[in-house]
């Protein structure tokens, strides 16, 4: 009875839970509400994926108004996969939040954190599930506005300026997206994505559609921090609370990559995006620069959170690189890396959060010998790092393997070589941490630090464990990513 309404419940449950958190201020109850909402969302997204795998795309008419007049929620393999990533990350990180958030804000104000977190979670799920272009913008702004709040909650005063900078750049990006959607509407008279795709395919490419394409690509690139539009990201991730850095790094940019894929492949379709517009070459250039420039900058960072943030910019480069190959293997690699990077970078930020909780700093100079003082957290960080490099038996290897295959398939041997070369830069910045953590003695007279509490270690290890498990057993991820990639290309022919 409830099954047909799962797409709506996916959004409604966290949306209703958010104000509920504001009302229940008694001890940890707000956390309990957020935990239940996250887990329910995860269960629903799992059921949705099973439904889509079995029976194809699901269309849900919001409020009973059928598409294209009403707002349609449309779940196909691609966004069922992204929904699963976002809700899985959310539900793994919630148990972690209890200790981490209370430690950073004190007992009085935690309910506000959970309210903002749930709104952000709702926004990200909404962007992913909706089939209506304007509705996508609204959800995007719900998630962005609440993430500005979450970042500003950081203890350092620089968190405020980071949030402000992100607000200005994020709003410019969102406004570009609205202009793009408006131009598309003026040309086609519809906002439903399926309808848009059909009408755009029927008309010859003209300047209005070209302008809409340009505005949308630039706006979405700002949101996903594509080099050189990544300037907001390093500060935002560095000064945000540990839990927020981990959550945003694992989900927000992934959802933005999804939006880019949706517009390029489902709305504009391959012929227009890469045939009429030379976007593949543009993306190729920017992706390669991001891989090298951001990784190089990461090597010289003393703050490990900032190092991971720059590494994220580089990893987004790999995802965009997969798109620029414009073949099914490349797109599979992008989708795989979407999942894989969420696991490993989420896990690494959580591990770093454990260290920051006990040591009180993420500066590399304070972490001498941390491998002996906090063995579990440090080991998690290092395994995540191996995955970033792309060592076999980790998920990072699987993504890079498919990327190289796609490069060869496209005939770009040089690019395949660049992928391997840029991985060496990751070796450099991870090795720096390993050396300090394991081969240096803790300074004499350093305060004794305990290992982080189990409620934080277990979520960390679940994500790190997943990043090893899915590196060995790739059946589920490769199958879903491959089928979603084929479906995306199928829409264009």
């Amino acid at each position: 009875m409830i099954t047909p309404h799962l797409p709506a419940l996916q959004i409604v449950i966290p949306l209703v839970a958010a104000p509920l958190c504001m009302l229940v201020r008694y001890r940890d109850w707000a956390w309990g509400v957020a935990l239940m909402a996250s887990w329910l969302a995860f269960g629903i997204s799992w059921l949705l994926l099973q439904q889509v795998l079995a029976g194809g795309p699901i269309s849900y008419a919001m409020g009973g108004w059928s598409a294209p007049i009403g707002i349609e929620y449309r779940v196909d393999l691609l966004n069922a996969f992204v929904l699963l990533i976002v809700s899985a990350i959310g539900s793994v990180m919630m148990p972690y939040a209890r200790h981490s958030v209370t430690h950073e804000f004190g007992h009085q104000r935690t309910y506000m954190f959970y309210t903002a977190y749930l709104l952000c979670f709702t926004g990200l799920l909404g962007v992913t599930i909706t089939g209506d272009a304007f509705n996508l913008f609204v959800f995007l702004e719900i998630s962005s506005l609440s993430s500005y709040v979450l970042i500003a909650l950081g203890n350092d005063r620089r968190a405020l300026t980071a949030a402000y900078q992100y607000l200005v750049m994020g709003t410019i990006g969102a406004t570009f997206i609205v202009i793009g959607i408006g131009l598309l509407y003026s040309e086609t008279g519809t906002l439903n994505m399926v309808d848009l795709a059909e009408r755009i395919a029927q008309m010859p490419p003209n300047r209005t559609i070209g302008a809409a394409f340009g505005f949308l690509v630039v706006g979405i690139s700002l949101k996903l921090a594509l080099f050189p539009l990544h300037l907001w990201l390093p500060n935002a991730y560095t000064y945000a609370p540990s839990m927020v850095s981990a959550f945003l790094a694992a989900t927000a940019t992934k959802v933005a990559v999804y939006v880019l894929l949706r517009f390029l492949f489902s709305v504009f379709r391959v012929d227009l995006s890469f045939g009429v517009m030379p976007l593949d070459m543009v993306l190729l250039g920017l992706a390669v620069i991001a891989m090298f420039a951001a990784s190089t900058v990461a090597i010289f960072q003393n703050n490990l959170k900032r190092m991971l943030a720059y590494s994220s910019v580089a990893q987004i480069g790999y995802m965009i690189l997969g798109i620029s190959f414009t073949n099914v293997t490349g797109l599979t690699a992008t989708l795989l890396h979407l999942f894989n990077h969420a696991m490993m970078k989420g896990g690494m930020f959580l591990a770093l959060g454990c260290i920051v909780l006990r040591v009180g700093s993420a500066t590399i100079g304070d972490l001498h010998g941390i491998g002996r003082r906090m063995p579990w957290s440090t080991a998690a960080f290092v395994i995540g790092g191996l995955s970033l490099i792309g060592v076999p038996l980790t998920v990072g290897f699987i993504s890079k393997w498919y990327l190289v295959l796609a490069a060869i398939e496209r005939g770009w041997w040089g690019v395949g070589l660049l992928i391997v070369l840029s991985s060496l830069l990751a070796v450099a910045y991870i090795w720096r941490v390993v050396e300090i953590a394991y081969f240096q003695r803790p300074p004499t007279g350093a305060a004794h630090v305990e290992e982080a509490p189990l409620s934080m270690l277990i979520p960390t290890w679940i994500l790190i464990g997943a990043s090893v498990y899915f590196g060995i057993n790739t059946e589920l991820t490769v199958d879903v990513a491959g089928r979603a990639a084929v479906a995306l290309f199928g829409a264009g022919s």
Partner: protein
Amino acid sequence: MMETALGLYNYWIAIFLMMAGFYIVVAHDNLIKKIVGLNIFQASVFVLYISLGKVTGGTAPIIDPAVTVYSNPLPHVLILTAIVVGVATTALGLALVVRINEAYGTIEEEEIHVQDDET
């Protein structure tokens, strides 16, 4: 040529506002002025949408047997939503400026950078 350029005046207004707002965001040091610029930038898009919905000779979209031509209400409704988003963004931006002022004692970007470099 001249006629089409003038006939599309609504677009010229939108482009002018957009560039003016964008310039303020980029060029000004004062955090509140940046928010004002951002508002003008967003307002340009509102103008663009609203003028798209206008049908020549059309009236307000309220059903009346005497009228056959109506303006398209959908862009106007969309912009109502976008205005709400804009208000929320402005409110949050200004709240952040208040907090920045409390933490740094200034709202000039240059001075904030100087203070950050010292620490």
